[in-house]
């Protein structure tokens, strides 16, 4: 068909791959060389004046050889990084159902607030009299976190979830040492479904990790915990809701059993977003729980960080918080930075320089103020509703390992429904990429074969969920019909085809190096 200028209005039959381009680009998908292949040693995108001549005082330790860095002008820099950005999938691109990671909408108001000079342009060590507003903000955020969790103390400084785990487990160790039981209580119970950070954290500070079995319904039974308890047990690290997306029904009994045995309950709070405003972990009997501000409270994941991992503490642990912390004295906020200022608190030390992730605190508080107590409860309910809606839409085609419990904020499937199709969980995930979706979390938790953990979050509309469900149903039926080629070589339409991870690990190339001159044939 032609329009009235004689131009065709539809594409011809040929596919893109039949017409490779000269550049290797495909319209908006532009190939981009490495910085070191396009930059120049003498190029700079920053205008700085050379200082007036002076006598350096570097003690004879000046750098003599070139560093090897390269630079780009400002327009080239913009183009380089914009092109790179276009090879990335973000929440703003589409549904990002990465279970356990909580890829919810990142409000831009929060970015704007974090960039107010009164927050972003203040130094952690300037006089406290000049940062009272910053300390007040941290104190307010701490208050919100304590109210939402039903706890009485919070250590704000941990830099991410795993760092919060570390601070919480250090508080537990300090409490045990204070009771004189340090030499005896060295075992930490961790279910096999736990995030890898749990056993890694416990081991990092010298605990011996013992697995706790889960029952066939995906939950931990108090009898199985009690059977492991003894004078050597320091704590249990339990995720709740757990990594199968189920609220642990016996959590109160488990907490009670731990306390009766003189041990502590560390709760991994990665999934706290399912129950904010619905239940308080403090009421359930936890002693410590980190909160991933970058999950539950929407601070951006930023391609892998930064996060923030404040850890709330029960009355039993509050005395063992790390430094620094804030003490309110009338209308004045004081930073307690050293043991001699700490008073009753037997601080176990310091987990980081300075006071933690202020930039993330501002974003999280901006999220909390925006939602309010009513909005946060609604967000939890919507997150759970959306996950169960997806589950209801897929459960006839895909297999649920734990059908007896409702899902919380994420729906877990296994790969038994793919048996004999020749399609793996990995293949299925890569085919989702071609459909314009980020894959769900795959092969985690480890207790489920070929796990597919889908967390839609509260940020998705019903129309978005419906299309996602229809897409996965279509893919599932194709897999069952034997259309394996669609899966085994997927993705076809991403900026790269499937990448060879084995090769990367066998011969690690971890940085750019200049190309070697080609040897003369005669040599």
């Amino acid at each position, binding site marked *: 068909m032609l329009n009235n200028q004689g131009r065709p209005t539809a594409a011809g039959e040929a596919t893109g791959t039949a017409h490779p381009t000269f550049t290797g680009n495909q319209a908006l998908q532009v190939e981009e060389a490495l910085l070191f292949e396009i930059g120049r040693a003498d190029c700079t995108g920053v205008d700085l004046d050379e200082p007036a001549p002076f006598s350096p005082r570097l003690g004879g330790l000046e750098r003599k050889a070139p560093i090897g860095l390269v630079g780009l002008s400002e327009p080239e820099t913009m183009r380089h990084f914009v092109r790179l950005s276009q090879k990335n999938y973000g929440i703003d691109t589409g549904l990002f159902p990465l279970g356990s990671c909580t890829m919810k909408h990142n409000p831009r108001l929060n970015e704007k607030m974090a960039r107010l000079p009164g927050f972003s342009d203040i130094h952690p060590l300037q006089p406290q009299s000049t940062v009272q507003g910053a300390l007040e903000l941290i104190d307010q955020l701490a208050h919100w976190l304590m109210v939402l969790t039903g706890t009485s103390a919070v250590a704000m400084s941990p830099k991410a979830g795993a760092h919060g785990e570390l601070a919480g487990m250090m508080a537990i160790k300090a409490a045990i040492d204070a009771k004189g039981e340090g030499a005896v209580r060295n075992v930490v119970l961790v279910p096999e479904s736990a995030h*890898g950070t749990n056993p890694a954290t416990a081991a990092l500070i010298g605990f011996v990790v013992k697995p706790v079995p889960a029952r066939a319904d995906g939950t931990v039974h108090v009898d199985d915990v009690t059977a492991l308890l003894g004078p050597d047990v320091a704590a249990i690290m339990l995720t709740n809701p757990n990594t199968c997306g189920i609220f642990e029904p016996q959590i109160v009994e488990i907490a009670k059993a731990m306390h009766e045995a003189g041990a502590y309950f560390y709760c991994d709070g990665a999934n706290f977003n399912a129950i904010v405003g619905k239940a308080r972990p403090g009421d359930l009997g936890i002693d410590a729980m980190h909160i991933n501000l970058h999950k539950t409270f929407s601070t951006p994941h930023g391609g892998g960080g930064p996060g923030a991992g404040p850890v709330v503490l029960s009355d039993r642990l509050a005395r063992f918080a790390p430094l620094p912390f804030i003490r309110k004295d009338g209308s004045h906020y004081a930073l307690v930075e050293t043991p001699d200022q700490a008073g009753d608190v037997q601080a176990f030390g310091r987990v980081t320089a300075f006071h933690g992730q202020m930039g993330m605190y501002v974003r999280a508080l901006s999220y909390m103020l925006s939602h309010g107590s009513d909005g946060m409860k609604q967000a939890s309910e919507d997150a759970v509703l959306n996950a169960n809606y997806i589950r209801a839409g897929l459960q006839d085609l895909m297999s649920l390992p734990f059908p007896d419990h409702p899902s919380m904020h994420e729906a877990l499937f296994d790969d038994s429904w793919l048996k004999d199709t020749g399609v793996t969980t990995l293949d299925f995930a890569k085919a989702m990429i071609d459909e314009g979706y980020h894959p769900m979390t795959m092969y985690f938790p480890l207790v489920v074969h070929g796990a597919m953990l889908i967390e839609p979050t509260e940020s998705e509309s019903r129309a978005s969920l419906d299309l996602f469900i229809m897409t996965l149903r279509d893919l599932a039926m194709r897999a069952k019909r034997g259309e394996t080629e669609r899966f085994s070589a997927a993705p076809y339409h991403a900026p790269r085809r499937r990448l060879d991870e084995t090769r990367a690990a066998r011969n690690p190339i971890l940085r750019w190096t200049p190309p070697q001159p080609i040897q003369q044939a005669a040599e």
Partner: protein
Amino acid sequence: MRYLPLSDADRTAMLARIGVTDIDALFADIPADKLLKAPVDLPRRKGELEVERQLGRLAAKNVSASSVPFFVGAGAYKHHVPATVDHLIQRSEFLTSYTPYQPEIAQGTLQYLFEFQTQVALLTGMEVANASMYDGSTGTGEAVLMAHRVTKRRKAVLSGGLHPHYAEVVRTLSHMAGDTVVTAPASPLADEDLIARIDGETSCVVVQNPDVFGNIRDLRPIAAAAQAKGALLIAVFTEAVSLGLIESPGAMGADIVVGEGQSIGNALNFGGPYVGLFAAKQKYVRQMPGRLCGETVDAEGQRGFVLTLSTREQHIRRDKATSNICTNSGLCCLAFTIHMTLLGEAGLKRLARINHANAVKLADALAGVKGVSVLNKAFFNEFTLRVPGKAADVVEKLAGKGVLGGVPYSRLAPEAGLDDLILVASTEVNSDDDRAAFVAALKEVL
């Protein structure tokens, strides 16, 4: 609520599709007596304007670095960050992406991580660098643990010039893990005898350069002495810009280099988020903590990047992992990489010379104030001022005069008994007027 797309009609229809009538049916596993019946005791939702006003009021109570003559350093530095950096890191595809576990749709993140690792390796003079730690201090703690794994020893020796917060992070971690730490006394004149503290049990010596007092240290004799006893040298820096002018730690013999990257691309942010830089010799790569990005090819032979050597990491190795770190400082790495790209080698070196020149000018000006002396012979953009009386009081009085004039060392380490020292930093942001204001204010308050 503006962030929640579902309508009440949607919710009702969706519950029906699921086969329940009430949302709380989905929360049935929560013990009934623990399920909250009403919203918790916190304020209700607010519109954007109200949130802006409320947070704006808190922000307005703080004195921002750009609003006054500003000379505070000691581990975090006020530098000018080009507008391009903050614009680019806010692109949705960077800001709202996750750790690049699906590399086919995360080549943007992975390629900049590869560029970041290359920049860090070059700057530090090391063979390999990882994709970042939380910050310099936690990176230092991890470096000590790594040295223990490499040497199969468990005693660290810390220089008295190591930032007291960093030393405290190392001691806290080591104490919990049952390892030994020997900390040399604070040495404002950099005249400590670290070599005498190294013995056959020592796994590593941790030396900061420039040290917390601003002194530039020659790491070569310490590296040689450590390595002669089978120990590693961990070189630490808190001011990344210094690497533009000072000999690299790698060239001076360091085995592991760890530092704070905040200075390049990242705002002060009251202490975080920052970005820990971590580099080492190639032979130790399998003992490194944190993520590593590596080059590979895709099914069509095209170059691409993936996270690699993951068998070191917690999600694979669990309690045998080299670290528990998962989330790191992704977006802060990006800010670092973009700023470093804009600077390039020429720009970084010039920026470093400006910093040094400004610090020299300031040191000379302050040394002219009666009763005040500068302790350092060699320094980069930070030095130590000895003042009559208590440094903390002087700094507070300077703040009263509208000058943020540095950090009293006693704030970092009250137990050291060094109550008359101020750590003073000067970067490219300081003008002649700033320096004159500092000198005038100091004369007034002394």
